[in-house]
């Protein structure tokens, strides 16, 4: 089974690069007193205004980075990797909806809930996927 629609292997490094890049940009922007459009009281500057651009440079940069990391091919993409990928996606969706439902009940801060929803599935997917692969490598080392 070959999964189509995956990014090439090198996209993983590009993705981590974007995630790392968003940190200094975020700190710099906040230090300049910029607010994200997801913050509770944004100054309304419209589309492609300062806040909107800041949002693109930080939140979207990080999401795009995580997206590339999550959906880049492995060096050797075989059927077991596809299986682990699908299984991790299933877990990520489970956890995401659990967090979403709990936060819908207990939290009224909708913009931050949206932001949470942007990270949780991707981050949980990446952690779970890498953890299973790490465990497989460990068991291989133990046998060798």
């Amino acid at each position, binding site marked *: *089974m070959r999964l189509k629609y995956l990014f090439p292997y090198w996209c993983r490094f590009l993705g981590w690069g974007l995630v790392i890049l968003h940190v200094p940009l975020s700190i710099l922007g906040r230090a300049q007193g910029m607010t994200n459009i997801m913050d509770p009281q944004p100054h309304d500057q419209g589309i492609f205004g300062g806040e909107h651009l800041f949002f693109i440079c930080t939140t979207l940069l990080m999401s795009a980075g995580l997206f590339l990391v999550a959906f880049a091919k492995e060096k050797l993409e*075989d*059927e*077991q990797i596809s*299986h682990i990928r699908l299984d991790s996606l299933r877990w990520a969706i489970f956890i995401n909806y659990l967090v979403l439902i709990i936060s819908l009940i207990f939290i009224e801060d909708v913009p931050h809930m949206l932001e949470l929803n942007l990270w949780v599935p991707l981050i949980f997917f990446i952690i779970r996927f890498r953890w299973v692969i790490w465990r497989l490598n460990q*068991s*291989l080392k133990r*046998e060798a």
Partner: protein
Amino acid sequence: MKNNIRVERAIKDMTQADLAEAVSVSRQTINTIESNKYVPSTVLALKIAKVFNKPLEEIFMLEDTD
């Protein structure tokens, strides 16, 4: 599902890496199949049987719990 890939490999004097290369999967995949942690797809099972030149049923067997 059980399998005797380990035995067949020993007969053919193949390492896990050799078999993995022959069927274009990772060593991890061969290792997890051998230790019954992963059930291969029909395509991969047929490929493995072809490497050992034996019918599928001689390499993969159903268990009572299947």
